[in-house]
């Protein structure tokens, strides 16, 4: 029937979009980044220079790589205890109850709040707190940004972890109970070892999200094009420098920014791929 053929061809053609898009993205990023790499070579990646003055332009990605890595990892560290306890609450202690359903919805709400709203709330509500602690004079900096970032990635870590934890077979838990273990002991000796790969994968995926976060970080990290000097010092991430400076950039500077975008793309793709790999190996 020609209707069949037409449908099959149509479906196949639409699948090509993804192929073309992916190829196009990679080609455009490489193409746009080429001038910067031609000018600075691979030194671009490890250099922390950022000098846009005409005549002695020099750009390097290291300040931003450092900013991205530090904020994302710090955010993950802050997020881990929160996500861990929340997923245990949802999937173990109160599994199946209305309370767990409510908590799950609340956590999902966290994921629905737009990034700019987080940044803006962080600016008006968290910043004064940070200034009050005296650890930073203006409230901007790596720590503030990481804190908000942590809140933003908690839902991603929690929902996957909770799912994996709820899939631990009841019989294993019962065997441990029947031997006299307390609930906490059952969790640490049976549930967690059983769910370990899934939990790690969920944290890696959360890290992947943190790496690409733009608006909230841009508004809180202090916009300093240097490697952060301390935990409460300002800096910039790959995403935030692009957001801040792309609009008025041109020529070599724009190419440098695109090159940073390329690096961000590669890092994020790698981390996400790692997480998916772990899940597949586990499932």
């Amino acid at each position: 029937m020609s209707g069949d053929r037409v449908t099959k061809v149509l479906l196949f053609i639409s699948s090509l979009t993804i192929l073309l898009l992916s190829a196009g993205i990679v080609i455009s990023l490489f193409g746009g980044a080429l001038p910067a790499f031609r000018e600075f070579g691979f030194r671009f990646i490890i250099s922390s220079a950022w000098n846009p003055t005409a005549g002695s332009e020099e750009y390097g990605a290291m300040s931003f790589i450092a900013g991205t890595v530090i904020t994302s990892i710090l955010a993950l560290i802050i997020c881990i205890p929160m996500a861990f306890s929340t997923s245990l609450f949802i999937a173990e202690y109160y599994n199946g109850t209305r309370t767990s359903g409510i908590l799950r919805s609340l956590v999902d709400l966290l994921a629905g709040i737009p990034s700019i709203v987080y940044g803006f709330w962080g600016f008006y509500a968290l910043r004064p707190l940070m200034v009050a602690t005296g650890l930073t004079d203006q409230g901007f900096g790596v720590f503030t940004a990481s804190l908000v970032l942590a809140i933003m990635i908690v839902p991603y870590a929690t929902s996957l972890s909770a799912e994996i934890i709820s899939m631990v077979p009841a019989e294993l838990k019962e065997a441990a109970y029947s031997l006299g273990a307390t609930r906490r002991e059952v969790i640490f000796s049976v549930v967690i070892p059983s769910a370990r790969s899934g939990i790690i994968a969920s944290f890696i995926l959360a890290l992947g999200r943190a790496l690409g976060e733009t608006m909230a970080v841009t508004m809180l990290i202090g916009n300093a094009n240097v490697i952060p000097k301390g935990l409460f010092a300002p800096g910039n991430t790959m995403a935030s420098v692009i957001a801040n400076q792309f609009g008025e950039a041109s020529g070599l500077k724009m190419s440098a920014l695109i090159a940073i975008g390329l690096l961000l793309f590669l890092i994020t793709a790698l981390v996400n791929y790692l997480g998916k790999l772990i899940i597949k190996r586990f499932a």
Partner: protein
Amino acid sequence: MTEMYPVLTDNISRRNRTNIRFRYLVIAGSVITVIPIFLIVGNLAVKGFRQINLAFFTKPAPDTFQAMMAASSGEIIPGGIANGLTGSLLMVVLASLFAIPLGLMTGIYIYENSSLKYARFIRSLTEILQGVPSIILGIIAYIWIVKNITRGYSALAGSVSLAIMMLPLIIRSTEETMRMIPVSIREAAFALGTPYYKMIYKILIPVSFSGLATGVLLALSRILGETAPLMLTALGSPAISLDVTRPVSAVPLLIWDFYNDPNMVSLVWSASLFLMVFVLSMNLLARSVASKHKYI
């Protein structure tokens, strides 16, 4: 029976105490995790409510002078977010025109041909694409559209970046929805002699409709809140227009503009409140659609 080894019974109370303490830790951690929601929503509601009236939705954003005058005399700032609303609407509709049909069809393709290596490859590419930070999609749309097609910032570029964001989301949710359809339904259709394409249009899609709708709604709620790619593509504009080749505003972009202008502070709160409520409502709507039609 004879005891061959020491059976300690004095650690039982210690273990019970640790057990109880750990439970409290878990509860405390969970409460801490969700406190930010209440803080954020509460803050926004209290501070943003004042500025919201009919004019908020119908008037375009004020310029900084008007805002300064109003702020210094303690009045409500004139104007609203109308240009942002129209711009967002324009770009989202354009993006949907591209992403929804393509996403559905690709999702169906992957589901129908899941045994082919090519289909699995496309699936992996979709997953990678989903993880690409939105600002990079902004760079891409800038290179493709702003530089080469519209020779300047434009709504078209903005919608392209949003479309690329929506596409993987819709593909994934379509495929997952399809996978939940019992195989017996397809088999029943084929047993009645239904041709393949009719099976898709008349059985597969209608049966999974609520799941597909949920996926679309969630994708929409995701892109409505996006700011970063629009900064590099749509740029923003005070005008209310439908010209896709010119810059256009969007609600998140307006929030960014207001944020950067100290005179417009109260507008930031109300615009953020509106955006957040809108996005969260879409989220809840999507969830209720999903749960009401539990057939799939």
